[in-house]
């Protein structure tokens, strides 16, 4: 197999910076004094020393009443209840799964927080425990929701809804969690023909459309469906979406269904999906997308 590999000099690298109308906020860097201590509460990204409140990360200050936080440009995912996440099963343990969710501690999916065949309220038997690996095994990708946050900051997940659960065929894109826009809905069926789960933890799942609504009972059909080969055209679209996301990420643009959709539209002028890997093309797409976004906000 032959292919063209282009390696360019560092000096010829494309600057992915896309101009943006937002005014620059005031930045704080580690060790910098934010304010004298009086009357303020210290939140994330700050610490108190010598009677003053100092920043511990580099980012912008956010003030909610008396709580002062500094939010860094990027960091590991800090989960909040209700967040939609995409994660990977690391380990099968006693009555629970360990899931990697890009947060600083591994998350936990209790056996009691998953839907098992046979109704939601069924008691978990010892048999179920032995069957855990049948249900989800190491390496499986799942989508889930944050049920609660433990005291040490690790997350407890649940999949007690049909939209959550094991993910089978598709592509996973990892981006920085700070680039994910919080929205009401993180499950989207994009008009271009793919479904997308934008996990709050920065993991984005792109998969082909599931044929409308799948009924609960014909489980077998789902199984079968999962194993069906995906059409080439679908695969190309998935790849295109993936490359669009990469282009937006390279220019550090926020991701939601709108921006991804806009980017997809703009990318269509490039016939070949792989052309999107070209840095100039990526910048072009990001730039045009930003333009479209600006138009919306102006409207």
């Amino acid at each position: 197999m032959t292919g063209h590999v282009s390696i360019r000099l560092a000096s010829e690298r494309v600057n992915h910076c896309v101009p943006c109308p937002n005014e620059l906020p005031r930045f704080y860097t580690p060790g910098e004094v934010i304010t004298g201590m009086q009357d303020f509460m210290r939140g994330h990204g700050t610490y108190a020393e010598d009677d003053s409140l100092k920043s511990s990360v580099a980012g912008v200050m956010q003030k909610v009443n008396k709580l002062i936080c500094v939010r860094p440009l990027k960091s590991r995912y800090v989960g909040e209840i209700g967040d939609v996440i995409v994660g990977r099963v690391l380990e099968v343990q006693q009555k629970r799964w360990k899931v990697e969710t890009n947060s600083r501690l591994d998350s936990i999916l209790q056996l009691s927080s998953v839907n098992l065949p046979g109704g939601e309220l069924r008691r978990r038997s010892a048999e179920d425990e032995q069957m855990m690996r049948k249900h989800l095994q190491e390496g499986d990708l799942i989508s889930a929701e944050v049920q609660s946050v433990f005291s040490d900051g690790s997350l407890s997940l649940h999949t007690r809804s049909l939209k959550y659960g094991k993910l089978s065929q598709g592509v996973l894109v990892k981006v920085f969690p700070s680039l994910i826009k919080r929205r009401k809905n993180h499950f989207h069926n994009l008009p271009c023909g793919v479904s997308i789960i934008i996990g709050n933890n920065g993991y984005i799942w792109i998969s082909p459309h599931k044929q409308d609504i799948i009924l609960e009972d014909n489980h077998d059909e789902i199984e079968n469906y999962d194993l069906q080969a995906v059409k080439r055209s679908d695969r190309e679209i998935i790849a295109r979406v993936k490359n669009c996301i990469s282009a937006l990420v390279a220019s550090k643009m926020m991701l939601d269904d709108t921006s991804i959709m806009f980017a997809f539209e703009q990318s269509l002028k490039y016939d070949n999906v792989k052309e999107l890997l070209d840095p100039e093309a990526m910048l072009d797409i990001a730039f045009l997308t930003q333009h479209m976004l600006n138009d919306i906000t102006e409207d």
Partner: protein
Amino acid sequence: MPGPDLLSSQGLRLDGRRPNELRRIRCKLGVFTQPDGSAYLEQGNTKVLAAVYGPHQASKSKSSSEGVVVNCQYSMATFSTGERKNRPRGDRKSQEMSMHLRQALTAAIKTEMYPRSQIDIYVEVLQADGGAYCASVNASTLALIDAGIPLKAYVCSCSASMAYKDGVPEPLLDVGHVEEAAGGVTLTVASLPSTGSIALLELSHRLHSDYFETVLSRAMQGCRDIEIILDKAVREHLAEGWTKQDVITI
């Protein structure tokens, strides 16, 4: 001791710097997408890459409920020095460097924030032209900041050495390879300049205590100068990255 002439009679060093001047420092944050934080730093011809992973779940054996475990790995590329040399990871020198890196960085990281977690810092020296340790510390700081890991303050490292001009001792800031190899003592200090505390101090040879103060203060001055440079780089990086984000997301 008036050995090699590191200072010309005009008060310039071999490479044209004055005794109190740093080498040119260029740096960039976020050079990789895969790690949580990364940075590239050039200090003269010394070029260093640093990548930070984490904080993530610590393996059971290392896990500590007190705070985060900082794990450093220093390595040098085969092509980093004049003579090409295969350097197995974990040889004595890199192990020592890794330990010293860990010591300096742990002093800055707010470790108590993340119990049972671990931060991995990988440093690769691409080109070594003196002061590889200093460059490694400075690059790691940037990578940590890039990863959004809470720090007490910047931790900066700088070296200083001694030379004589007309018989008067004059400390040299930020020692390059030529000056290092010319013999004489090199003092390496890693400090948190904004608090003035010292995280690590190392002397390559014996230095008479008469000179220690002056050399140390010169090295500390260098750390402060480096902090200014790093801070500028961080702010530029923030400005670049922030434009596309909504300011308020709560």
